[in-house]
């Protein structure tokens, strides 16, 4: 046996020899500087595959397989800790039913086909009618994956038919940021959680959904610090158990609460006059309503909000007046640092943009903004909803780097960077998610002009609202074709015409962008199973096939391939999978994409900087000494290089072009569907700790599945008594859109108030989205999964 010294010596020598041979073959060194080998296990860094928190894990690889996961102690986000999903993340690679071959549905059965044929079939669908070919992606797309799809659709097919599942998840947060600050994404970061005195959860349950952020905040109590937690929710959750105050409100009335607090700040004269005078404008709806709205005088704002007295707010919301006063007194204090967190509760809301505006407005009005601990911060549910969807702009109306298709200058800039002939990029937005699937679900004669959707990295067959209306009808229409790239059989692949097996997570190179503007990078560590291949490669291979067939959109203005890449003066055959990892295609795509990032001051560093770090928060600005410096607090002079000297705060993308943020008046309006005699319950849907989204990965991890094996309907004890329902008893849940049999759980994981029900959406066998409502926010087009009317039938056969 080698002793330690010998081992080090010999491994160093082997490394040197191999490095030399790689150089001889002209292969770039792509290994991570963080890589270390212990007892034959290679450890390297990667961000977790699951939520938007963006923890880093250490991935241990032996004999070509992942054998262990550890929390990454060098990671600023999670500081070595993970949640139960993170500790088990790599088991998601090894489910026994991984998709390993391209599968084509013929006469109702799936047949294995070659990748060659699969690429041909996808290309055929484009060639027959490029205008009706759409991409449906996700916030789990890596940045290069989303960028490739974006360029494929907007630069290649020029039809703007691309939208992501993130539309269902954080679109209202985006419209909220845009209409408040003129530019998307939070100004604060997770450092606020280390500094705040008060943390307010707006319809948010981070103890289960963002556990690492929750423990980062709450573990401060173990260290003897005082953290006041306030839970504003529609049901008691695990987070409620830690909270000092619980404000239970009737669904939709969060708007009334926020207005009520602002009303008191004005009435008590405890708002931050200096901050408001220097840095804010007031805003209200324009006619017709537009996202930027119109400026209104302070007096008008005051008059409009005047009716939101504690009595009135309490009457609408059910929250006691004393609690509204309590919130207002906290916001009225300058000596307390207040951070607000929210996620789906505020975003999956038919008044999503409005409630986002109000929470931002509350922080602006009270000056609880822009210093460590004072921040309104939206959390994302997907690992790259920010990095890919919001920054790359994989939305029907958007272009990379905060640009939009409707803006002439923006299109020109994009055409220039992509080397396209002028006029290539279409000014007309494509369909947003609900409209895209509606079009796909309608025959062509009836106006359904989308004939093909290529789905990557998501599961719309389970996660679209009202799937019986938006997803299933197309499956009976002759001329519709569904292509799905995925890693496991899902509720979507089971309806697909063509299934493409994908590589996942550390089976490929990747980059994510988390909730706090942190861009992260990892390297491929293991091979994907069978013939599974990278999603980026899939997109590039189809693009190249189209180019070879003479499809004009896949040529730039010099006639070169749209995705032309070079290394050392030689063209990279990115479409040739045998040669794909001879180069770092991710780095190539990212370096091109990076050029887009400066317009909105979301500067990204070169790829190699992300190789060195556990992520960097943009804007990442280069210092005079050549080093790259991240930004923790945007718009704040002490940290953001783009704020001019002496300004203290500068909202440099202000919609009013004067460096000010907008405090909106947004009235409470009732929801589109409310409980009535026929459907007397509120129905809310959401997630649980153990499962991530539609459960396709976590339901294949034994430890997670054993702990939470199926969906259930959570109900209040009083309702259960009244209806004679016991825990575990199977009841039928019905809405105007569908029905589902589920076991009841009384005082289970969460406790809804009387008259409310909750069902998690992870279970593909008990798909709650056959029942949910597809009504959406007018600005963000994000549907409301959190409230509709339902009834329970006991003893249904």
């Amino acid at each position, binding site marked *: 046996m080698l002793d330690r010294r010998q081992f080090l010596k010999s491994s160093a020598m082997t490394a040197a020899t191999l490095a030399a041979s790689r150089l001889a073959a002209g292969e770039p060194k792509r290994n991570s500087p963080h890589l*270390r080998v212990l007892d034959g296990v290679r450890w390297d860094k990667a961000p977790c595959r699951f939520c938007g928190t963006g923890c880093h894990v250490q991935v241990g690889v032996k004999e070509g397989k992942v054998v262990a996961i550890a929390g990454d102690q060098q990671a600023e986000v999670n500081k070595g800790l993970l949640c*139960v999903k993170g500790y088990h993340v790599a*088991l998601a690679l090894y489910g026994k039913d991984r998709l390993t071959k391209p599968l084509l549905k013929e006469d109702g059965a799936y047949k294995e086909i070659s990748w060659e044929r699969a690429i041909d079939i996808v290309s055929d669908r484009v060639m027959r009618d490029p205008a009706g070919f759409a991409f449906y992606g996700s916030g789990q797309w890596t940045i290069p994956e989303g960028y490739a799809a974006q360029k494929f659709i907007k630069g290649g097919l020029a039809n703007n038919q691309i939208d992501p599942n993130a539309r269902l998840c954080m679109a209202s947060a985006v419209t909220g940021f845009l209409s408040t600050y003129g530019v998307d994404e939070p100004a604060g970061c997770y450092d606020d959680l280390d500094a705040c005195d008060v943390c307010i959860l707006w319809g948010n349950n981070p103890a289960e959904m963002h*556990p690492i952020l929750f423990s980062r905040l709450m573990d401060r109590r173990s260290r003897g610090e005082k953290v006041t937690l306030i839970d504003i929710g529609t049901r008691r959750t*695990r987070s409620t158990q830690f909270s000092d105050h619980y404000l239970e409100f009737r669904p939709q009335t969060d708007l009334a609460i926020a207005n009520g607090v602002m009303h008191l700040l004005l009435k008590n004269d405890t708002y931050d006059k200096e901050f408001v005078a220097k840095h804010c404008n007031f805003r209200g709806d324009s006619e017709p309503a537009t996202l930027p709205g119109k400026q209104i005088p302070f007096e008008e704002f005051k008059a409009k909000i005047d009716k939101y007295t504690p009595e009135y707010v309490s009457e609408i919301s059910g929250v006691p007046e004393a609690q509204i006063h309590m919130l207002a007194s906290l916001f009225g204090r300058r000596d307390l640092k207040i951070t607000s967190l929210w996620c789906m509760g505020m975003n999956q809301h038919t008044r999503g943009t409005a409630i986002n505006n109000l929470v931002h407005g509350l922080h602006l009005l009270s000056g609880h903004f822009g210093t460590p601990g004072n921040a309104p911060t939206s959390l994302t549910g997907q690992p790259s909803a920010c990095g890919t969807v919001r920054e790359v702009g994989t939305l029907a109306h958007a272009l990379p780097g905060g640009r939009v298709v409707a803006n002439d200058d923006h299109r020109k800039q994009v055409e220039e960077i992509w080397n396209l002939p002028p006029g290539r990029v279409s000014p007309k937005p494509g369909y947003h998610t609900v409209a895209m699937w509606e079009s796909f679900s309608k025959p062509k004669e009836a106006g359904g002009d989308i004939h093909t959707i290529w789905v990557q990295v998501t599961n719309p067959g389970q996660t679209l609202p009202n799937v019986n209306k938006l997803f299933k009808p197309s499956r009976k229409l002759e001329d519709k074709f569904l292509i799905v790239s995925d890693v496991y059989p899902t509720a979507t692949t089971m309806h697909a015409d063509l299934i493409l097996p994908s590589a996942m997570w550390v089976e490929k190179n990747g980059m994510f962008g988390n909730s706090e503007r942190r861009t992260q990078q990892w390297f491929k560590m293991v091979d994907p199973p069978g013939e599974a291949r990278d999603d980026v490669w899939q997109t590039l291979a189809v693009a190249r096939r189209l180019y070879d067939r003479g499809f004009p959109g896949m040529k730039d203005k010099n006639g070169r391939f749209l995705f032309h890449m070079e290394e050392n003066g030689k063209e990279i055959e990115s479409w040739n999978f045998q040669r794909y990892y001879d180069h770092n295609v991710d780095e190539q795509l990212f370096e091109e994409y990076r050029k887009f990032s400066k317009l909105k001051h979301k500067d990204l560093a070169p790829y190699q900087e992300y190789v060195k770090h556990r992520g960097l928060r943009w804007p990442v600005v280069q210092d005079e000494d050549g080093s790259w410096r991240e930004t923790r607090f945007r718009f704040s002079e002490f940290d953001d290089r783009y704020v001019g000297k002496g300004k203290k705060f500068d909202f440099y993308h202000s919609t009013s072009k004067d460096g000010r943020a907008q405090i909106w008046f947004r009235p409470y309006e009732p929801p589109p569907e409310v409980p009535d005699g026929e459907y007397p319950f509120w129905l809310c849907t959401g997630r649980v700790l*153990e499962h991530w989204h539609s459960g396709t990965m976590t339901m294949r991890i034994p430890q997670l599945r054993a702990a939470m094996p199926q969906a259930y309907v959570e109900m209040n004890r009083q309702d259960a008594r009244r209806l004679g329902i016991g825990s575990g008893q199977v009841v039928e849940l019905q809405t105007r859109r569908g029905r589902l049999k589920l076991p009841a759980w009384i005082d289970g994981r969460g406790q809804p108030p009387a008259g409310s029900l909750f069902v998690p959406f992870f279970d593909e066998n008990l798909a709650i989205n056959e029942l949910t409502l597809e009504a959406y926010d007018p600005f963000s087009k994000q549907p409301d999964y959190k409230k509709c009317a339902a009834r329970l039938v006991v003893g249904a056969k």
Partner: protein
Amino acid sequence: MGTRLPPSGVETTRMMYIGAAALLASLVGFLSVVRDRQAPDGFSESPAEVAGTAPGALSYSELRARQDPESLGLYELGLKQLREALPALTDAVVQTEGDRANALRMRASNRAFNGAPPTVPHAVDQSAEPNCLACHQTGVVIAGKVAPAMSHAPFVSCLQCHVVQKAPAGLSETPYAGNEFVPSLGFAQKGSRAWSGAPPTVPHSAWMRENCGSCHGVTGRLGMRSTHPDRANCKQCHALSAEFDQRAFSSALVLSDAAEPLPSAGH
């Protein structure tokens, strides 16, 4: 609440364990200084029970409301006795290689891999953070089974890492294509000794394992136990590993990235 935990058709030891856990849950609830909350029911068995035909048991808050100091003293004594059932620090430790193999096997049985947080082999309150520390801070013995002391400092949200092994009754498991790590990261081998008689080095990461006594002290399984658990400052003799603990890495280690071949380029 404890008395309503579901009976199930599993083997007797498990029943005893569940029963003990239930009893303990009651003790903990009674002693708990956490704020008032609804009684922590799991799934109850019979619909009638909640439908009002059977009287419900008292909630902890109701029990507390009775302010029965006599019972309170009993419960406190009960917990103390459970703690005292642990071996004494000075008890002689006699263990074999077979004990060690058994300990490692048991250890593997509730972890996905070496380093994964162990799953919880008893029912827990799903709706709230249970007072895990009542038992797991120091460790206790219940019906002959040891609830080990925690290996790491208490974080507030235990259930975000430790999930139950078995779903609450009423949620049924369905067969599925499971998975596992093959190969798996095996459990740490014995530490190295400079020479016979030298103290062995620590052969695993000490991250989240600051309390050596959790596994190697009196709550540890026989086979992994230290012969001298009374000596409290373990790390003064047993050297930790910087590499295991993700601290400093020598440049030679960084260079050794080719110790195993890179993933292949394609197929």
